[in-house]
């Protein structure tokens, strides 16, 4: 048995199982931990395909940074327990079957179209020998990255700057909110409670009706087609 098969089966299975875990665990923290499993398994699959650099980066950037960010925000916001409505949904007996059906449906469709027997008509220049000659996967990649792919590489820095600037602006507390715990001033607290009451007035959403329109005013008999009538559907 080829060694790669072992890696494939082990990491592939853990990836799928952890991915399903992400979806099925009601508590976001558990989901995040499960996500680490999935990402690490993908890193393993990279390893199996001799993408050593990516495999390491995958662990460092994804599990080290992205998932930590998730966990950090979950902790910060204090949503470290399952939403009861969500829990209820996930416990429904039909749910796993529906989910499985969806996955097989989407996946099957994609595979049907692309065909299991994938055609790879072209052979590139980065054969295993060429990569070895460059000094290995890391060297070959870095060489490409800083020559041919220089411009995209530079653009990613712009992307990151834009994201940081935007993130800071959005998440920073406003001046008038400074110094009060979550940033709640009496004024804002009052506005929020009004909003929440307005939401409550709309009625709590049942897990199943999320896919139903709840209050679109049908008003089918109105003849004044052009002029002067409005229906109420505004902000909550």
């Amino acid at each position, binding site marked *: 048995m080829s060694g790669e098969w072992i890696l494939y089966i082990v990491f592939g299975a853990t990836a799928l199982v952890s991915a399903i875990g992400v979806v099925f665990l009601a508590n976001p923290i558990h989901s995040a931990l499960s996500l680490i499993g999935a990402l690490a398994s993908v890193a393993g699959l990279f390893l199996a395909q001799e993408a050593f650099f990516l495999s390491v980066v995958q662990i460092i950037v994804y599990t080290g940074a992205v998932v930590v960010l998730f966990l950090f925000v979950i902790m910060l916001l204090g949503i470290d327990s399952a939403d009861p409505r969500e829990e209820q949904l996930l416990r429904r007996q039909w749910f796993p079957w529906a989910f499985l059906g969806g996955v097989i449906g989407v996946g099957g469709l994609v595979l*049907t*179209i*692309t065909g299991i027997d994938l055609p790879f008509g072209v052979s590139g220049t980065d054969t295993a020998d060429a990569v070895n000659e460059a000094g290995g996967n890391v060297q070959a990649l870095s060489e490409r990255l800083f020559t041919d792919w220089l411009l995209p590489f530079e653009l990613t820095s712009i992307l990151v700057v834009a994201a940081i600037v935007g993130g800071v602006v959005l998440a920073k507390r406003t001046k008038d909110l400074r110094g009060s715990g979550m940033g709640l001033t009496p004024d804002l607290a009052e506005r929020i409670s009004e909003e929440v009451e307005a939401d409550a007035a709309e009625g709590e959403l049942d897990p199943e009706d*999320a896919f139903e*329109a709840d209050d*679109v005013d049908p008003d089918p008999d109105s*003849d004044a087609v052009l002029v*002067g009538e409005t229906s109420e559907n505004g902000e909550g």
Partner: protein
Amino acid sequence: MSKEAAENILELAWIVPLICLVSAGVLTTLGRKLKEPWGGVVGVGAVGVAFLVTVVVFAALLSLPADQRVFEHVLFEWIPAGGFRIEAGFLVDPLSILWMLLVTGVGFVIHVYSLGYIAGDERYTTFFGQMNLFVASMLILVLGNNFLVLFVGWELVGACSYLLIGFWFKKIENSSAGNKAFFANRVGDFGFLVGLMLIFATVGSLDFDTVFGAAYASLGGGAGVPIALGTATAICLLLLVGVTGKSAQVPLYVWLADAMAGPTPVSALIHAATMVTAGVYLISRAHPLFALSEVSRAIVTFVGIGTAFYAATIALGQYRVKRVLAYSTISQLGYMIAAVGIGGAGYAAGVFHVISHGFFKALLFLGAGSLMHAMHGEEDMRRLGGLRKVMPWTAGLFLVGGLSISGIIPFSGFWSKDAILGALYESPESWGKIAWGIGLAAAFLTALYMFRTYFLTFTGDRSWGDEAHPHESPWVMVIPMLVLAVGTTLWGLADLPGSQWLHGFLEPTFGVFGGEAERWTGEVVLLLTAGLLVGVLGVATAYAVWSRATRERRISFGERIPAGAGMFWRKAYDVDAALEYGVRRPGWELTGVLATVDEDAIDRTVMGIGGGAKRAGRQLARLQNGSVRVYASVFLGGVVLIAAYVIVRGGAGL
């Protein structure tokens, strides 16, 4: 006037719409800042100046030799794409100058009248702004030198009329009438637009010159891309769809009667002088295309003459003066459409009748407005009567208008209607005589319903309550009516058989298609006599039945009267009932069926396009319920659809 001087003046013809446009802009933007008399003064003044300039242009055109009276001037090149270009400019020729005179002239008179009618309204200045915009749009329509400019005017006219009909939009009824007008016109415009596209696809241009050049080429003369017969028929029928919308012909006429909800000067301006005649103008202008397709001309003729008869039967059953006038307008427009449909001498006859109708229908509307002004908006004939003594001027002038529309000598209506009937009868086309027969019958009905209106309103007992204090209208309203009355008396001279000045004047436009001028022959005299007899018969019948109507009878007109042979002959009262059963009822039953079609099918189709669209929109909006997950589901659904397409397309690796 020297030739150069004349051409210099003609080059400035574009000033006429500009004056109206600028004044409309000023009046609309200033809105309330311009206090009551001044807004009106600016509005009326602008149209007055426009009229004067038009007269000067007309004089300049007349001073040129007849064969040089088609003057095209390109203002700028308007070039949307690559090889195709549009030279936006204007075209002054006998046809367009007549329409300009009509629009500015009658428009001016109606503007003066509005000074009295709209006085005191809170949106006084805005009203004049919109009226001026309307006049400007109509001028753009008739002045354009290509179909695109014409279409610009066509659309603007529709939008303005929509605004004006709904002017007093606080009444729900009005705004829904505005809607109806809008829908019907949209359906028509759609046909028109598709027609334009077809023209463009066929000829590759929308310039009148090029398109008609192609039409001539297909007839065997001149250079250009020939147009196949089938294409020509399709184009003509599509244009006809546009015409039925704008000129209120069957089946898209439904909006016009309801459009009466607007202020009376608006009714007069739209129904008498301008917008509704746009269809006649379009067919006259596009006559080389219609010359290509005999089938389409036959259809146009019968749509027109059919509408003339059909609308007349409806008019007979109406009790509100303005509604009678509205249906009468539809009916008269039918005559014009029939005339330009059959072609030949019909072109000149149609144009003749347009202006003739402009005079007498404006007069009748202003008379009705004067009546309503005096009676505080009451216009139901069952509650009028005997007004002649109180409002002698209005009654007399209304009578003049009535005689003219009924085709009584010597008023212009007699000459113009008989010109149309003559053109139908003498046309070489085989269907002409049938159309003539229907037209003659419609002429009888016209006289009948018109004088029914006159007698019920102005003669007999008073049927109004004591609370009404009718009075003669102010001079600012009477004088415009007087002017129009003079116009309708004298206009007949323009195209008397034998001299036929108008026919000759229009020759540069219509050329070989215009047919021969009429001579005083025995046949012509016979035809004229027949027309006159029919009119007189109608008036006489109306006199016998309605001239001495009492208050009770007026009120009972509307009620069901059991039919019986005994009661049939006893009194005039019963004749009325007989007419009720013999003419109005069958007409009503016939039109009842048609009216069901009217109210249900057409109305519903027309309104349904909007309503259905709206309903569909609401259903779709249900999906847009704010949930990200639903949105993502729709998104994924779209992806699956596309994937399915990929499979079906055979790209799949199956």
